[in-house]
């Protein structure tokens, strides 16, 4: 991705320091018109290759890593079509066609349960977790003192660097049955409450853990986008008598709309991935009915249960759905005139 961006810049001969997204929009608008840019694109590919050789060479190590660790392992997905036996070489496990996908199409209750839990979590997290950093970024942006802003920001994004094991342990130590709060209540003869291990509150618990851990971190991107907004727009707006609220609505939000759409699309691609590590650590108490999601289903079936083929099939479908969601959402973004993840 990095390399293709540089390529575009060189091809258009654009040396301005405009943000990448804007640059792409302007070149996109130009399609169809006989501009120098297009004539140059008709150059034979090898001459373009020679012209861009330095950039291409610089991109090579990254490409090699991507190929080796991202694309090559994709080939392992063939086990979704095999009765895979882990101690035989790939080719030697018997081929079973689409048998492994039967759990998906026949509605295996455990699979359906995992899918339902995943979708509920995704929905809740897109509605509650996704907007949280935007709101926080707007709030921080409205703080006048730069020093306080930085201090608050640092405190808020530190939890991102804690691993899930630690985060889950902290929540258990505070909210668990023998956690700080319950121990205090018990010592003073009050009724205790059950949060950890309560299957009714599990979605809420997971969501609040995610928010506590990652909201601060996610504001960084939005704050960067906010700082890109031309200050003269605010001046002009206030000259016209716009209130703070209207400034936010007409200047600030449109200014970061591009990045919001971009992140939302990327989030959709991950929508079937809802915190494997976080959930597996807390599955014992709440039970599978409330806590099994697609990722833990794949783990419990594949690694623990030895049903490698079925696990790979579910994982493959999950990946395919993710790709389709990204492409679909991107298409819609284009129709609405946004840039999306890439330009069409």
């Amino acid at each position, binding site marked *: 991705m990095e390399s293709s961006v540089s390529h575009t810049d060189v091809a258009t001969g654009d040396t301005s320091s405009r943000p990448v997204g804007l640059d792409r929009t302007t070149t996109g608008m130009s399609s169809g018109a006989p501009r120098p840019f297009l004539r140059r694109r008709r150059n034979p590919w090898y001459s373009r290759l020679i012209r861009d050789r330095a950039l291409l060479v610089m991109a090579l190590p990254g490409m090699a890593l991507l190929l080796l660790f991202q694309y090559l392992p994709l080939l392992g997905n063939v086990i979704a079509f095999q009765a895979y*036996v*882990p*101690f*035989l070489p790939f080719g030697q496990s018997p081929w079973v066609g689409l048998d492994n996908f039967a759990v998906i199409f026949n509605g295996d209750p455990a699979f359906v349960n995992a899918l339902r839990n995943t979708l509920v979590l995704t929905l809740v997290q897109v509605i509650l977790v996704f907007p949280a950093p935007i709101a926080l970024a707007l709030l921080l942006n409205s703080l006048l003192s730069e020093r306080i802003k930085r201090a608050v920001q640092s405190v808020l994004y530190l939890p991102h660097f804690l691993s899930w094991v630690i985060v889950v342990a902290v929540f*258990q130590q505070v909210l*668990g*049955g*023998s*956690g700080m709060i*319950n*121990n205090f209540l*018990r*010592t003073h*003869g009050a009724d*205790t409450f059950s949060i*950890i*291990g309560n*299957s009714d509150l599990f979605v809420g618990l997971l969501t609040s853990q995610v928010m506590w851990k990652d909201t601060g971190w996610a504001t960084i991107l939005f704050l960067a986008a906010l700082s890109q907004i031309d200050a003269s727009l605010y001046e002009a707006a206030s000259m016209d008598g716009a209130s703070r609220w209207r400034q936010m609505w007409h200047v600030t939000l449109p200014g970061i709309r591009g990045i919001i759409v971009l992140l939302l699309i990327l989030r959709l691609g991950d929508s079937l991935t809802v915190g494997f590590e976080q959930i597996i*650590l*807390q599955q*014992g*108490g709440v*039970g*599978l*009915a409330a806590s099994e999601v697609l990722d833990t289903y794949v783990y*419990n*079936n594949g*690694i*623990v*249960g*030895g*049903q*490698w083929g079925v696990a790979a099939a579910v994982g493959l479908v999950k990946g395919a759905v993710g790709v389709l969601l990204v492409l679909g959402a991107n298409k819609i973004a284009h129709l609405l005139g946004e840039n999306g993840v890439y330009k069409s």
Partner: protein
Amino acid sequence: MSLSRRTFLSAGIGAAALMASASCSSSTTPPATGGGVADAGVELPTYIRFEGVTADLPGTDDGIPDTFFSYPANPQAATDGPPADGSAIQGSVPVNKAVPPSMDRNSYWQALNERIGSELRLTITPGADYPQRFATAVAGDGLGDVFTIDMSFAQLPQFLAAQCQDLTEFLSGDAISDYPFLANLPTDSWRGTVYNGAIYGLPISRGVQSSGLLYTRDDLFEARGVDPQPATIDDFVQTCRDLTDTRANTWALTNVPMATLQQMYGLPNTWGVDDAGAFSHAIEADGYKAALELGRSLVADELVHPDFADATGADAKGWFGAGSSAIHQDTYSAMGSMYDVGSTAGEGYLVGLMLTPGEDGQPAPFWLGNPNNTISAIAKGDEARVRMLLEVLNFLAAPIGTAEHLFRKYGLEGVHYDFDGNNDPVLTELGETEASGGTFPIEYLIDGPRPNYYPGRPQVAQDIYDHMQQVIPTGVRNPTVGLYSATQGTVGGRLNTTLNDATNAILLGREPVSSWDDVVADWRSAGGDSIRSEYEEGYAAANG
């Protein structure tokens, strides 16, 4: 040793369920330890007892192990020269303490290499993660020359046949006399190494020490004036009430000891077999629902630590050691760690062993654990290499009272341990870390027969001996030990996950006890009945 979070329930539900830790905790390790029909043809290794050392209380034919009150005096070398040929040996093992320092920073390990005569390159994985590590290492061909087997691995016999060395010609019958310390391992343990009609592994022998029981913090019992030996089930519940003080944040039980509760109601040891050779699972018996009801009421009455459901075995032991709970279910072989967790509790710290009360007021029939913790296997290789590896394993199986054993467990005198006044080796700080506190994970490649010996605590060995004398002679075996069920091997893991989950749901009050009938019906149709008929077939073939 420790029953981990995933395993403690399964210890009650199904022997096979102890999958989460092949490494330890095998109070009832998977029944997948035998060849069933197939082993009829293979001659098991001849048992040749090592006579070099005399126990303070000799073991019995029932399986009570040799008991020692101090380390046997003047341990002599029982082998001559390093067993290996100098070429590096790769291996994979689990560990149930902190992972010891790596070879280059570990003087004990280096001394071990020197004595073996080769570099022993071990990949050491925490026990709770070993099944996952094993599964991925199998797929990636990364286990090495000799490795601990995860007994819950699906298609285990096929894996052994495809990747592991058939050891029959080296070990069967009198052939084992080439390896005297392997010949010193009990026949019951070798039975669990037979698959596909051949000997495919070496036993990590535990004898009866993998049987589970309830440990009691006798110092806490005494402080509260409670008798640690309840005579009836009602007494047991009352004992739990007497030990619970929620306002002080203490609860009687670390978790719901389902295996013990089942023994109270006289249920079969996971599987039972009648005179006609018909098998039935403990979960199918009415008594199982009685056990569930008892477990549910223990939780509902707040007699169990409130965080038990998400706790690891180490967490539960920690509560026991810290005194937030006073009763903990674990195996005999976990006794050492019961004292480890209480190392900061001070002088009076005292661990007792409860005799589980039965319905009739007599001690309940005691479930015998799997004779093996797990097995280890050797990768396929040429004869010279296999013999060399067997020599090394023979060396590592030297029993208590030999110089090899003393070094293997405790390292170098003056560096890793010192003898105390009672002639017991006491580990130094360096020995605690480098030699994993006397349990360096080579003990999961092979080990001698496990003695009943606790350095510096002769009374503990005596207490265990006394407890065993009361329960072992009338112990209940799991009839599937030594049989193999292919269905258990493939879908058993999934079935046990479901059973554990359903049990948890009932214990925590999410589902009523009456829902258990549906759980059992589902279990039967999802594979339980096939497992039953496979065991019945194997049992019939083995017992004529």
